């Protein structure tokens, strides 16, 4: 507890991922499910940055490849949010609901 180790960051990242995972499993509002997906993406980003700071190279700098990867993840996530919310708006226009149990046309 005195000094912060890599494991502390990984545990926090795992907890955040679990919260997002529980949100996807338990909530029935499609917008909340979407927000929980963002939480899971961010948890992965946190562990990537923690590993980047942990693996200091021969030049004494953090491993910046991981941070470039996080940059790409954030970009793709932003594009994904835009497309996903447009799909939700189209869905709402067709069905007047955001509750996933009301959208069951494809259910077997």
């Amino acid at each position, binding site marked *: 507890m005195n000094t912060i180790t890599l494991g502390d960051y*990984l545990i*926090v990242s795992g907890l955040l991922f*679990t*919260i997002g995972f*529980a949100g996807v499993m338990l909530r*029935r509002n499609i917008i909340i499910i979407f927000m929980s997906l963002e939480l899971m993406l961010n948890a992965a980003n946190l562990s990537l940055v923690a590993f980047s700071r942990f693996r200091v190279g021969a030049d004494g700098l953090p491993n*910046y490849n991981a941070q470039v990867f996080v940059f790409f993840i954030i970009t793709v*996530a932003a594009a994904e949010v835009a*497309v996903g919310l447009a799909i939700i708006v189209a869905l709402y226009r067709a069905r007047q609901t955001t509750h996933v149990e009301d959208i069951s046309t494809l259910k077997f």
Partner: protein
Amino acid sequence: MAFNQVPNDSPNVSPILFWTFALLMLVFGAAVVINRNPIASALSLVVSFLGLAALFMSLDAFLIGIIQVLVYAGAVMVLFLFIIMLLDLRAEERRKVNVVAFAGGAAVAFAFFIQIFCVIGKLGAAKQTFPPLPAVKTDDVRNIGLLLFGNYNLPFQIIGVLILVATIGVIVLSKRELR
């Protein structure tokens, strides 16, 4: 750059700051899932993202922290709030919850966390502290930029095409009638 000259004599993160921001992030992350009002969820998500940005800064990833604030806490959350208000979503009315499905979902999430916890416990590197950086703070914007425009130039351009496709896709999806 002012902080460029600050000697980095304390290589490890302050535990108080770390646990403060980690708790802030986790509590408000849980509030996203627990709140029944979508607007309250979205605002909790902003606080959670700000706590995460502080954790990025504590790992000396200043560029990523700033991008996190600008892109997530700024652009993405405005988009979420805009859609919530456009659809005029009220607090969800209580429906009868399928107790078995709820318990199953909670159990799967809990088992998942136990699994992660055990894996991290087995990882030898998890018990090590972070190695110190050189005394002069490194400018990570320059280093990430060099990688982005050098090594990762092709993925960078592919990302540009992806954003263009997403833009066109959103416009097509938002048209009055889908054919």
